[in-house]
């Protein structure tokens, strides 16, 4: 049969600002080549031309949906070069914001993945419930998406009065709601038929090809930066690293779903353990000469920041290793042999975010 070349994206409603170049034989994908770069801004170059504090709002835009985690990695790297450690209260609040952001990111990604699997109503449930978490973030930082909340040496402002009560109210509601989600979505036979066994990624391949985050844990590999090299206060918190063994689209989606519950538990523990004290220490404007590689676990996986300082107030080099960059590069492996109709399902089971893959 003749090979048909199909451009899936970048103007396709189910692609995001990226493209998959598919070679089809009938409706089977024989080859898939991801084409990224449509939203490339060269944020690494911008980072070299701005001071550390100016870099916070710029770098968090690599992943606006997960912006706190995106800026946190950079700050951890420069704090390591400066040789300073933020006070415990700031560290706990960082964990709280980081997990809130992971929940928002997961809800958004999951909602879209439900839609691409043919479940239209859950798209609106997820987006509507996400508003509650945006409200919590707004309460803390004043903004809903990009916060510029973490600062060198700590955080910008303390938690407002009444945050704990509001957060617990939201979690009490949402934990029950998640059970409904589970029954309606993951127990749905049609949903299972569309996702199970689709886009299988074996654990060895997942590691070798560089998958990260829920894409890697959906293949049964227990790798999570929060557990492997605990930053901030993760060492003092009791949480499970969620994995699923099947390695298919269903497993990857379920990992992200189960992580939401775990994130809420982490925030509950952090609120209980939250010590009194300062939220920031004075950080120098200039970093001494040196380099550091800091990693954080964002919603999509590990964000790595390799920062080199030459002793000025600007970094000499900022390298960002972004999770979607790594996960999208693994897509050809998952898409090979799939049906054309399953392409959006596989694509969104990895929760791609072209803004962070392109930087």
């Amino acid at each position, binding site marked *: 049969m003749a090979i048909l070349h199909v451009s899936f994206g970048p103007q396709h409603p189910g692609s995001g600002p990226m493209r998959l170049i598919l070679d089809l034989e009938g409706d089977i994908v024989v080859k898939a080549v991801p084409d*990224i*770069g449509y939203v*490339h801004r*060269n944020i*690494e*170059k*911008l980072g070299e*031309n701005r001071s550390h504090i100016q870099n916070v709002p710029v770098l968090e835009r690599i992943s606006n949906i997960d912006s706190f985690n995106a800026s946190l990695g950079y700050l951890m790297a420069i704090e*390591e070069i400066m040789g300073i450690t933020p006070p415990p209260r700031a560290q706990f609040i960082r964990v709280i914001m980081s997990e809130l952001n992971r929940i928002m990111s997961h809800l958004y990604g999951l909602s879209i993945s439900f839609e691409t699997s043919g479940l239209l109503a859950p798209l609106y449930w997820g987006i509507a419930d996400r508003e509650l978490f945006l409200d919590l973030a707004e309460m803390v930082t004043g903004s809903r998406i990009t916060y510029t909340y973490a600062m060198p040496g700590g955080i910008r402002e303390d938690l407002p009065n009444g945050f704990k009560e509001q957060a617990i109210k939201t979690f009490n509601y949402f934990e029950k709601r998640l059970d409904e989600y589970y029954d309606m979505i993951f127990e749905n036979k049609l949903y299972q038929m569309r996702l199970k066994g689709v886009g299988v990624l074996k654990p060895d391949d997942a*590691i*070798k*090809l*560089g998958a*990260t985050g829920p894409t890697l844990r959906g293949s049964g*590999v227990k*790798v999570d930066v929060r557990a*492997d*090299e605990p930053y901030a206060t993760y060492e003092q918190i009791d949480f499970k690293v969620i994995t699923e063994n099947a390695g298919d689209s269903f497993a990857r989606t379920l990992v992200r779903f189960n992580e939401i519950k775990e994130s809420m538990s982490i925030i509950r523990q952090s609120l209980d353990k939250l010590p009194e004290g300062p939220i920031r220490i004075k950080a120098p404007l200039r970093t001494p000469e040196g380099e550091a*590689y800091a*990693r954080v676990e964002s919603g999509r996986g*590990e964000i*790595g920041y*390799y920062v*080199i300082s030459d002793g000025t107030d600007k970094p*000499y*080099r900022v*390298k960002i*290793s972004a999770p979607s*960059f*790594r996960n999208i*590069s693994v897509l050809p492996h998952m898409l090979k042999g799939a049906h054309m109709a399953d392409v959006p399902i596989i694509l969104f089971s990895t929760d791609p975010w072209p803004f962070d893959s*392109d*930087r």
Partner: protein
Amino acid sequence: MSLDLENKLAEEIKSHFLEAEVKVQRKSRITVFIGRELMIEIARYLNKKMGFDQVVSVSGVDKIKENAFIIVYHIWSTSKKVLVTLKTQVPRDNPSLPSLIKIFEGVNWHEKETHEMFGIKFEGHPDLGRLLLPEGWDGKFPLRKDFTLTQ
């Protein structure tokens, strides 16, 4: 915090690669600096013998004052939970080194990006074409230090 594991791994690398500069930076970070002709050999050793199985990042660094590029591979061991920073240096006027793609398949896009942004050639890489920059880009390398923002 104990650095026993890191020191042990660093000793093992040192004993097999006498030319390498090995340093334990902190908990779970080891830095190795080695000549480009030994890159393949050390990468194979790290992967096959020491369990470093995932490349998490590849960076180029333009050392314009020293007329050189530094190429940095960050390699993670999912079993040992240690990150090796593997560095090598190439001259700025002949920036090429062997690709590690035969050992770590995951370096594919990372090396492609480093080639696009710095003009560093990875010998043996199957496809060093466009990745992030637009079609019809004039062939300059945006992350080199002599490329300024106003360009």
